[in-house]
């Protein structure tokens, strides 16, 4: 087992190097390159730009720049934000809690609903309920996440005046938990629909597959109550592949969360990324893309390890 884990971690090192190299390369070809922010200053002189080029090491070959950037990044130094001069890690760190609040709330709700709806759909295959769920998840999958957000704003904020349209709290009012929750509702619904459409289908098809297995027939044959068959025998075995697929969708979920943030002006990482890209705030853009991608890799490793630990049928050598 330990050998497997070690191998899995080692295998991800070239992937991490590839990710950083790719993002580094793309960002370097952004118009204006790393100095874009400075080039736009009206007072900057040619000499100053040359000075900055040397200071940042931009006159060196690209691979040397990459190596020195990677060396610093490994020590948590992603440079400084061009906007306020603060370390990139701190700038991004400030935004993490808001994004986590949104993502974790949405994830918990959508996973719970996915299991309930998926199991009910599977046990009543071809029922009216199953058809309704199928139609809804098809619609959910065809919907751009930002559009869903706009429609929710249209219905619940503009028409019904029930909920606020943007931000995390009402500005100028002391923080209250209730206010925060109110602001959370629409973005969370958006993200839940976005993930639920896919995930309830995973649960459904995994359950349907398990229900056809011999051991389910055996359990029924020896007279186990249907409830027990469903929850003790079927669901348990259906869980593992579902959880794996759900965790592999992590990158997909992050994209959805970041887009949702822009629609609702949620002050998280998504917002920061768009603002930084717009401003040409190059270190923040690179730092965020790299950090989030590495988080995806870590989640993938964890998924594989959990799979290996939980499923005794699989022998890893």
């Amino acid at each position, binding site marked *: 087992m330990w050998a497997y884990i070690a191998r899995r971690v080692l295998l991800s090192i*070239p*992937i991490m190097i*590839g*990710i950083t190299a*790719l*993002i580094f390369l*793309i*960002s370097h*070809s*952004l*118009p204006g390159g790393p100095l874009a922010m400075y080039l736009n200053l009206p007072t900057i002189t040619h000499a100053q730009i040359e000075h900055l080029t040397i200071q940042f090491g931009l006159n060196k070959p690209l691979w040397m720049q990459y190596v020195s950037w990677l060396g610093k990044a490994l020590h948590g130094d992603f440079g400084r934000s061009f906007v306020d001069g603060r370390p990139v890690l701190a700038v991004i760190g400030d935004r993490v809690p808001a994004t986590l609040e949104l993502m974790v709330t949405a994830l918990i709700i959508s996973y719970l609903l996915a299991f309930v709806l998926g199991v009910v759909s599977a046990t009543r*295959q*071809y029922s009216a309920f199953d*058809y309704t769920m*199928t*139609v809804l*998840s*098809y*619609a959910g*999958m*065809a*919907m*751009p*996440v*930002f*559009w869903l957000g*706009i*429609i929710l*704003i*249209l219905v619940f904020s*503009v028409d019904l005046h029930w909920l606020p349209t943007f931000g995390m709290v009402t500005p100028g009012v002391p923080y209250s938990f209730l206010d925060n929750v109110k602001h959370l509702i629409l973005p969370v619904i958006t993200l839940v629909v976005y993930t639920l*459409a*896919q995930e309830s*289908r995973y649960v*459904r*098809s995994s359950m*349907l*597959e398990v229900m056809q297995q011999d051991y389910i027939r055996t359990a029924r044959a020896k007279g186990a109550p249907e409830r027990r068959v469903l929850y003790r025998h079927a669901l348990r075995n259906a869980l593992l*592949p579902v959880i794996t*697929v759900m965790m*592999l969708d992590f*990158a*997909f979920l*992050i*994209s959805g969360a*970041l*887009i949702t943030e*822009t*629609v609702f002006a949620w002050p998280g990482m998504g917002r920061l*990324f*768009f603002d930084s*890209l717009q401003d040409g705030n190059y270190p923040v*853009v690179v730092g*965020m*893309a790299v950090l*989030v*991608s590495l988080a*995806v*890799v870590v989640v*993938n490793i964890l998924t594989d390890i959990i799979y290996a630990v939980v499923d005794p049928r699989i022998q890893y050598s």
Partner: protein
Amino acid sequence: MGAASPLAEAQESQLLIRPPSFWRRLLLHKLAIVGAAVLLVVIVLCLLGPVVTGTNPNAIDFTAFGSPPSLHHLMGTDDLGRDEFTRILFGGRISLLVGFLAMLIGVGLGGLVGAISGFFGGTVDFIAMRVVDIALSIPRLFLLLLLSVTIGQSIFDISLIIGLTAWMYPARIMRAQVLGLRSLNYVEAARSIGSRSTRVLFRHIVPNAIAPLIVNSTIQVGQAIVSESVMSFLGYGIQPPTPSWGNMLTNAQTFVQTAPWLAIFPGVMIVITVLAFNLIGDALRDALDPTGQKGALGRGRNAKQATA
């Protein structure tokens, strides 16, 4: 719906003596027929756009700024007084074009990488599959936006960018197919009569491996339309005044209070078009592989099955 209706299921089981043909199985999928019909209507309307509405998508009606849907302006006008219905039709051309182009690029590139990777195996395969892992680990939104700033925002640029971020699943699907086929007897036979590797791969293996890729490409068109809409909504896609379903939604949020129709129509067009592509894709999957598990559907699902 990936699952056939009970009726279709029953009809199918009656036909068991002689397995229904591919076209018959496809026709049994009523929802897919609906999807295809909807798609046909959308495509024809968009292509005939100027004939239908007879106006320029950027023509301004100075008597109607932000006016609600009426007989004169079927879907109302936008904040600049442009007819929304005309823009929907012209925007549809762009969105559909980007969808198809991006699919061709993504599936073409992915198919090629997957075929080479599965056929040659060894180091080539290892490296290609690690590149796939790398590309899949970077959340797609980052790549779409960064590449848009780097490469450009013409219709072809946007299609290229979407294709470049969508080739990974086709590559995995193709690889799995080729792996399964390359040790079969008829391939051995082709080799033994001295065919070159490229001929064996492209003449004997790829044509037999292509079916799942066709299923995936249908779904990819829909996904590409969604990607275009996200990029354009955020301002990094098709640039105005050229309309696309995505960039028509850019200002929709600003006017959501005064002109809600501007938010509704482009989104509805995206949803029904993407839905139609997904329905057709799922029906194709069932029709091409009647033994396969039914009911599995959607984004990358068959890719995951292929690599599981």
